[in-house]
Structure formats: structure tokens, C-alpha cells
């Protein structure tokens, strides 16, 4: 194993912003900022629909705001469409039945010391690492 592309400072700064965003939604609206739940509720549930859509809209504005002030955002995705389709279905189905994703379990849940979220986070990191190991990077 070798360490490459390590950017701890920008990662940590971004993390603090995410934690702050989660806190704002919690203290004002009383809600947890789990993105998979917010996204699926926005489409499948009528309660709080405008709130959910506005949160998602804010997520989309994030990179746009950032590029206005900094010039550009790097985002490279080289996967084939077949892989993208399978991955999208797995991410949607998995987070729905598993009640959360990287934000809901990995950030909100672990911050609350939820055992369910700790187990879920360990599970998806293990299968994610194994998938990259098998299918290559």
C-alpha cells in the first residue's frame, strides 16, 4: 500500500462544513440530514416535500457556488454506462432498505453513537473496499 493524492486539510475543512450543515438542519428544523432519506422522501412522500427539494437544490448549488469563487471543480467519472446503471440501482436499493447512506449513517448516526449506524458504516466501507479491490480502480 502506498499513500497518494492525500489532501487532509481540504478534506477536514469540507468535513467541518458538512457537520455544520447537519447541525443547522437539526437545531432549526429538527431533522437529520441523511441525503438518501431526504432524496427518497422528496419523491415518495408528500410531507415536507418543499423542504426536501430545497435541501437537494442546495446540494446542487454547492459546486456551482464553489466554482464561482475558485474557478473550477474536479470531478472525473470514467465508469461505463453498464456499471453506472448497476451502481445507481445498488446505491438506491441498498440505502433504502439499509435506512441510510454515508451522511445518514456515517455522519449523523455515528455522531449520535448509534450502534446501527456504526455497523452500517463498517459494512459499506468493507464492501466498498472489496469492490474496488476486485474490480480495480
Amino acid at each position: 500500500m502506498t499513500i497518494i493524492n492525500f489532501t487532509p486539510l481540504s478534506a477536514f475543512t469540507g468535513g467541518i462544513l458538512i457537520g455544520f450543515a447537519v447541525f443547522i438542519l437539526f437545531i432549526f428544523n429538527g431533522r437529520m440530514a441523511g441525503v438518501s432519506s431526504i432524496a427518497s422522501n422528496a419523491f415518495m412522500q408528500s410531507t415536507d416535500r418543499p423542504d426536501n427539494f430545497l435541501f437537494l437544490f442546495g446540494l446542487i448549488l454547492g459546486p456551482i457556488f464553489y466554482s464561482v469563487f475558485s474557478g473550477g471543480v474536479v470531478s472525473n467519472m470514467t465508469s461505463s454506462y453498464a456499471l453506472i446503471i448497476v451502481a445507481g440501482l445498488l446505491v438506491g436499493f441498498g440505502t433504502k432498505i439499509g435506512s441510510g447512506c454515508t451522511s445518514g449513517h456515517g455522519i449523523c448516526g455515528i455522531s449520535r453513537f448509534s450502534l446501527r449506524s456504526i455497523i452500517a458504516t463498517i459494512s459499506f466501507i468493507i464492501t466498498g473496499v472489496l469492490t474496488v479491490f476486485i474490480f480495480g480502480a
Partner: protein
Amino acid sequence: MTKLISLISGLIFGLGLTISGMVNPEKVIGFLNIFREWDPSLIFVMVGAIITFSPLYLIFKRKSRPILTQFFIIPSKKDLDKNLIIGASLFGIGWGLVGLCPGPAISALSFFKYEVYAFVACMFIGFYLGNILINRQN
């Protein structure tokens, strides 16, 4: 007012995902590529978010209610059921295949790439299918 907060929270969240590099699938795959060339940065994203939110959560959850709504909505399930483990494991496979999870996938819609649109469309189909399964189980 809750709508404005939702928008602001989403925007700050999206900025965080952008600054940290999580909107770049290549970087996320680099984080999961522990056995070859590893980019540990994303640990710092999680740690940064958790050390920010966790103490604030512990302090403010004792408040009787949020500032703008009647009560806090916090997941109450405690049991480690099959759905949790299987769901999280399947999610991890999808995450490892292309390097996108739900938050960054939504943020990445701003890049106007067909690949991202396809991913997000399939993710919503996945939500729908998962919902059917959950309704059958109940």
C-alpha cells in the same frame, strides 16, 4: 422559514462535499483503494463532520424542541436487522463500483454530465424498488 434553512443547509453541505473532493468519484475510489494506492483524505471528511456535529448534538438534544418546528425527528430503531446489514453492504458495492454515494451524486448533477444523470435516475429507481420490498415485509 424551515424552507430557507433547508436550502442553506443543503448549500453548505454541497460546499463541504465540493471542497473535500467527495464530488470527485475518482477521489472516492482512491479512498476505497486501500490495498493498492490509498488516498486516506475521506477519513478527514468524516472526522471533521463528526467532531463538529457530535458535541453540538449532545448539547442541544436536551432542548425540548427545535427552533422552528415542534419536535426533533431522530431515528429510534435499535435492532441490528437483516435489512440494515444487507442494505448497507449492497450500497457499499454500488459506491465502490463508480465512486458516488447519494449526497455527492445529487451535487454532481451541477456538472451537466449524462453519466451523473443516469446514476441519479437509477438511484431513484433503486429507492422505489427498496420501498416495494419494505412494504411487502410489513
